[in-house]
């Protein structure tokens, strides 16, 4: 088996993110994901620093590494200068490069991120485009957004912009510029990562017997990864001590 720890060490974020952990817990104490999910960044770092390939492999396949929201609050506080958030980013990269991300429900979601944000970058030159934030799949955006979306040109004109104009907010990114971006992605491994995500996802969809299309978002596997929730992400064990703590708030 490949030396996964050595592979992680080639990622500058991992090198910056892990010195050695003394398990003080300031990271978990402040982590928004630890408040919401069954997640503990301290434990993740403690596991990784064993340098044990079997443990790291389990992490790469797990739900655990996908709970972090990358707020980096952990970086501010760690007395050893570690950053669990950066360790997570390095783990996520390896998990996708090696195809392990499809083993977990949360990991499979990377496919949707690639198809939306990832492809927006190369198609439009932006991570997010207004005409893509469809109120039907984003009811939480509310009535104000729905109006804005339904009257995009009028609304933008009101505030001094022009949808796909020559300049200003939401200007159209020209084809030459998009080509430059494409070239950058080719040269730096960005396209390779996109391809790795696609490949593993297509295999997984076949394994799960779900419809898969090589373009677009209107098919079963896409809808599945975006909505699936097995209800196990916030499992809490019986813990009397925890109830006592809750009572003390």
């Amino acid at each position, binding site marked *: 088996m490949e030396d996964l720890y050595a592979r992680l060490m080639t990622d*500058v974020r991992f090198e*910056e993110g892990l010195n050695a952990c003394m398990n003080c817990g300031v990271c978990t104490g402040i982590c*928004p*994901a630890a*408040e919401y999910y069954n997640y503990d960044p301290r434990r993740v770092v403690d596991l990784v620093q064993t340098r044990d390939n079997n443990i790291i492999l389990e992490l790469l396949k797990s739900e655990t590494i*996908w709970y972090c*929201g*990358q*707020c*980096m*609050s952990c*970086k*501010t506080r760690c007395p050893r200068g570690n950053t669990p958030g950066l360790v997570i*980013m390095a783990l996520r*990269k390896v998990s*996708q490069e090696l195809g392990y991300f499809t083993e977990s429900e*949360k990991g499979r*979601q*990377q496919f*949707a*991120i*690639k198809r939306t*944000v*990832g492809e927006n*970058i190369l198609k439009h030159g*932006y991570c*997010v*485009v207004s005409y893509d*934030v469809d109120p039907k*799949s984003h009811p*939480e955006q*509310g*009535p*104000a957004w729905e*109006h*804005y979306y339904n*009257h995009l040109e*009028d609304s933008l004109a*009101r*505030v*001094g*912009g022009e949808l796909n104009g020559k300049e200003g*907010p939401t*200007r159209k*990114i*020209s084809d030459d510029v998009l080509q*430059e*971006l494409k*070239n*950058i992605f*080719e*040269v*730096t*491994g*960005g396209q390779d*990562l996109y391809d790795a*995500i696609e490949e593993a996802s297509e295999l997984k969809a076949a394994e799960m017997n779900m419809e898969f299309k090589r373009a677009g978002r209107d098919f079963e596997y896409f809808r599945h*990864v*975006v*909505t699936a929730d097995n209800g196990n992400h916030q499992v809490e064990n019986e813990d009397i001590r925890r109830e006592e703590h809750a009572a003390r708030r």
Partner: protein
Amino acid sequence: MQLEGKKRIWAEYQKDIPDDHFFYVRSCIRQTFFAGSEQVFLKIMRDDLGKDVMEDPRHTTCTGIGYHGDVVPFETISTVVARHFALATEAGYKNIAISCVTSFGIYTEILETWKHFPDLLAKTRDNLFKATGREFDLPESIAHASDIIYKFRDELARKAKYQLYDITTGKPLKVVEHIGCHYAKMFPKHGIGGAEFPHVLVGMIESWGGEVIDYPERRHCCGFGFRQYLIQANRGYSISASRKKFESMEPYKPDMIVANCPGCAMFMDRWQYTIKEIDDVTYGGYKTGIPTLTYEEMAGLVMGYDPWEMGLQFHNVQALPLLRKMGIKADPDKRFLAKDGSRLPEPANLINS
């Protein structure tokens, strides 16, 4: 709370912000959800402050959301950002003004990484040249756009038409200021005031007559979480983070929330709407929601710009109560107009409408 202690910290974390000649790079989120805000920033800089702010339409996303969504590698984002440096170099600009807070965090992270790993800088130079034929100088300074408004807050205060003042009570408005995580949590020395007691918005608010509220969950992330919002199944993470903040700030009776990160401003507006729909709970004074503004909108109000031309109507929590408090006359009927001036149907279920 003792102000002396905070002042000590603020004095230590002062940042050198250039005086003029900025190369502006836009934000995917801000231009999508708060396009007016970016235009307000440029208007304030150029018309009110007489500054030179250049924008090259060939600049793109920095790919930050992709990077923090873990679909874009570090080498790729470094090279995209290097391309922006190349555009700035080409135009003769040494100071970058960054609209997005995540971008600001990323530009800082990349520059810091290059400082400690010069071989990576060399590699990026190679990659950029190979991909685009472009070359670049390192910028002399990078600032978040809010840093720049902060720097000139007193000058703007002198020119201001309104104050962050409640004319109905005769007291300063109570303002919750929210700083995007990627502004200072990664590199506290690069944020005005550092990570624990950031000053960039406090300074603006106080210069413009408002009172800042501190509350226990002030430093808590708004909950964007990148993938935690992008993917529908994960959104519970995002909404509960904001909810925690609302519940914590509510007893202090804030009149408004202001954020320097566009994502935070967007979420704290959207989640108030969503919480109302799910649980029929609203926050703020008379349970009418807490208007959540970008700092540009706050600056624009103070400078007397038309609220609707700034896009304040495109928030779920309408700012009408806030405008009344500040004594700003703005006709609610003029909020939703088409390009030709005709009235568009007003969205239903806005809060405070």
